[in-house]
């Protein structure tokens, strides 16, 4: 069969709009999700049994079920339960934020745990108050260690955001599928869509490994 990639140029604007939607969704959910994840990460290491139990159930549930079913649940069930209309964008943001919160909370928890007990011992030996211990000693090290994993969580979120196309949000994947159905040229259109995702995600994954090496080198001093 003859491939004709010039067809893409005709739909440039639509694809760009879809890409913009994907990026907007990713960005909003990265910011909200990291904040949520940080709070949940703290809750999971807290002394209160209640907080620990609730946050663990939340994290395990969102990590243990497919993102697609989470999305469907929030799109179809949340409006029924709350009794209010939710816009497409709002439901997408809620679903992906909850997903991002669950995976980043694990990242924060692991990095909080990775700050060794000798650091705390040193704080106690120096007679530092609890507040200073957390803010000036534990947190900076924990956040620094979390950065590479957080970045790869962002890449995962960017990829998972393509799922919103399944519930009719006009993101890059949705636009791509529509164009491919209307023009009957799936090979060209879907390949270009895949390439667009690749071109954005690939440099990010490279950046992750670069930053990881730098931070490891810095922490080794």
């Amino acid at each position, binding site marked *: *069969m003859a491939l004709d990639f010039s067809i893409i140029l005709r739909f440039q604007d639509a694809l760009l709009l879809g890409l913009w939607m994907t990026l907007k969704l990713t960005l909003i959910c990265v910011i909200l999700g990291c904040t949520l994840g940080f709070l949940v990460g703290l809750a999971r290491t807290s002394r209160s049994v209640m907080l620990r139990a609730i946050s663990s159930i939340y994290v*395990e*549930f969102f*990590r*243990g*079920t*497919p*993102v*697609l*079913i*989470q999305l*469907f*649940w929030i799109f*179809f*069930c949340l409006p*029924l*339960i*709350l*009794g209010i209309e939710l816009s497409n964008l709002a439901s997408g943001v809620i679903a992906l934020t909850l997903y991002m919160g669950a995976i980043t909370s694990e990242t924060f928890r692991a990095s909080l745990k990775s700050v060794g007990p000798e650091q705390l011992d040193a704080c106690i030996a120096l007679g530092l108050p609890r507040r200073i211990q957390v803010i000036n000693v534990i947190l900076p090290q924990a956040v620094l260690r979390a950065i590479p994993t957080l970045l790869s969580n962002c*890449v995962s979120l960017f*990829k*998972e*955001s*393509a*799922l919103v*196309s*399944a519930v009719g949000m006009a993101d890059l*994947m949705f636009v*791509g*599928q529509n164009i*491919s159905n209307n023009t009957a040229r*799936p*090979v060209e259109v*879907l*390949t270009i*869509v*895949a390439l667009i*995702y*690749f071109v954005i*995600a*690939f440099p990010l*994954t490279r950046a992750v490994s670069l930053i990881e090496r730098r931070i490891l080198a810095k922490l080794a001093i």
Partner: protein
Amino acid sequence: MNYSFDFQSISFAPLWEGLMVTLELTAAANIIGIVGGFLLALLIMSPIAVIRLPAMLFVEFFRCTPAIVQIVWFFYCVPMLFNVFLGSMTMGILALGFNLMAFNAEAYRASIQAVPREQIDAGIALGLNPFQRILYIVLPTAFRASIPVLLTNGIGIFQQSALVAIVAVQDLMYQGKTLATETYRPIETFTVVALIYFAVSFPVTQVVGYLERRRQLLMN
């Protein structure tokens, strides 16, 4: 909230059938992923650029594009490009299997690199040929070290397999969607489907956690 729940209206027979399809997809994709992933890891680490580069491109492409794009691409484009028509189940298994292969290859690579150099030197000293060195020295050590990540990736594919519902493979997700539209009971149906997925993947993640803790204890 004034919604009356009615879990009675959900029939479990189609969900059970769907779960079997999901498990079949997961198992077959894992076989491809575990075996193919190791071979792919060897290719990535090959000193010959002509072998290494295509393998790396394959891995990076699957790791850097959304799984849903890969699955839709596979279903629409492979029949057109290569003029082959496979059953939807086979297509689903291949798409998920290739995706898993790429992720597992990275896991294997990390643990192959962690096999101590001395062990391979010892293999050379004992007069083993390169093939025997891989089979008897590298593979057992690397495989054991990668088990936690392989399990995590494997359960990841179990969850990703829900995506084949979009291309109308009748898995658990697809049956759930159909049931939700037939009964007008989306809350009950999707909750039950989510719980089924959770009930399968949660024990596996607990096992992974246990294996990792044990490994850390052994290393200390």
